[in-house]
């Protein structure tokens, strides 16, 4: 059922490396991405890590956890993480979990019609 994950790492000149992520990022495959990205983060003088998500299929909670760990390790290495060509599914997941801004630097869209703790609905 699940698409197997394929990862292609390509130097992008200067101080950037791209990883093309194709297939499903789930419990079975998240570790592979984490390993590949961690290897790249060891590269000297790296400044930008691009994960190209155009070919990303499903991303489940394990996939999201892997992205968050990569983000942290990138931060520790002084590398900026880019999640390029994100599809609607990934954006929805990042938005729902409140991690969009943290992972991409983009501000999260306002939550629904924002209501504060005082807002009372219903009867």
């Amino acid at each position, binding site marked *: 059922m699940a698409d197997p994950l394929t990862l292609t790492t390509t130097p992008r000149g200067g101080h950037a490396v791209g990883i093309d992520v194709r297939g499903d990022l789930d419990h079975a495959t998240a570790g592979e991405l984490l390993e590949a990205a961690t290897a790249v983060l060891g590269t000297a003088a790296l400044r930008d890590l691009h994960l190209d998500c155009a070919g990303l299929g499903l991303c489940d*909670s394990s996939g999201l*956890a892997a992205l968050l760990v990569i983000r942290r390790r990138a931060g520790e290495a002084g590398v900026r993480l880019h999640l390029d060509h994100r599809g609607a599914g990934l954006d929805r997941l990042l938005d729902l*979990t409140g991690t969009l801004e943290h992972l991409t630097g983009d501000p999260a869209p306002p939550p*629904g019609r924002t209501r504060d703790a005082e807002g009372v609905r219903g009867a």
Partner: protein
Amino acid sequence: MTRTWLSAPWPVLQVDAEGIISQANDAARSLLTGAAPGVPLDDAVPHWLARAAPGAVARGRVGESLFEAHPTVDGAGVLWWLMDVTERERVSEALRDERRRTAFLAEASNELLSSLNLDRCMEVTARLAARHLADAALVILPESGHRYPVAYCGPDGRVVRENLAVDPGQVPGLEEALRGFPPMPSRWIDPAAAPGWLAREGLGELGSVVVTALPGHGVPAGALVLLRRAVHAGFSAGEEVFTRLFAARAGAAISAACLYAEQASITEVLMRELLPPRTRRLDGVELAARYRPSGATALVGGDFYDLHPGAPGEESLVVLGDVCGKGLEAAVLTGKIRDTLHALLPVADDHQRLLSMLNQVLLTGERNTFVTLVLASVRRDGPRVRLRLTSAGHAPPVIVRAGGRVEETHTKGTLIGMLEAVTSVTDTVTLDPGDTCLLFTDGITEARGGPLGDELFGEQQLLEELEQCAGMPPEALTERVQMLASEWAGGGDQDDMAVIAITAPVEPRPASERSPAR
């Protein structure tokens, strides 16, 4: 007529119609010393041959050897050709024995391997041993709680399971066999010295008693005691070897069953802690929860829920969560989260604060996994139910109004356990009688399948289906939702699914006013 048979290498006798030997060749004379022409057959040969009818092959012993007598009739009487079949018979007897043993070992393996249940394995071992190896058999396992688990099978084939407080030291070799050290072949013991729990009533006089170790997977599984009555033969060397082969199989099966039982009981203890609570009411609010772990083998997965009833008139807290990951690791993290939330109940009136504190606790761990949660603080207010709902990275709850309207709630927040700071927005909802608030994990909305095979069940479809569910009691509603998602997923991979329905009762009659049974 040439008597060529006179020089045949087999004994041949010619007998006339009166039963008198008329000729005997050399081979016959050297086998049957009295056989000579003119001697009545009766006086010269064993009874079986003297009585043999000339129409059929006869069999019998001459001295130590076994012979077949083949008759041929010629003009002068009957010719008996005697053939020594001792060796052939021994070989085919050995072959029959071997086949019987192979069949028995195959049967034993089949029966023993079919069950991982300790009692069953002990019973099967005792029964097979009593039936095939002895008159009665006793399987005894190493001490457990100052007693020895025993399975005894008597000549009637009935197996009795007991736990006996006995001293294995009474039986020579039994302690060593139970310890599995030092290694030794089967030990013969004096039947007269066997204690009553071995030599049981109904067995009669014992001829032989043998103790054999049951070797397990690297550890001793127990011992097998075989008992034969005096009227039966003792154990031959071949039988002893064979008994050891059987003991090896039985020991392996018993040992596997022991390991399995141990594992199962550890899992059971852990799971009991982790299994979600069962309750139907929280201070006048109706509630139903359903949980189905993913994967055919897991009993507990990454989804969980918890109920923390408040004092009457106070808020109760309902938590639904989804831990990232699977299996034991997820289960352990689930336990930690549930414990932490329990400890944080005093701050439950401030969901954001509670979530921040939980986040801090989880950040002290490995920080490579997270949990998403919905907190629902529930308070009965007259006929209504007031809810404070906060999502931490989780799908927001849905309200199913008694009239059939379905509404999404507006709460949102950060997942817990990976980011330094978390934020959240709480929504407040009031349920009128018959209204339900539904909490669910993504195993529902992300069930993949459907008639076309690869579509998500999806939130939209959930909302549509819920429109048909207005006014259902919470159990029916949760079952309906879980059933729809499960059937959508069909036989495909299913994620954990958890659903909770919180309902404002239509008829406010608390359970305490009624007795469920008279």
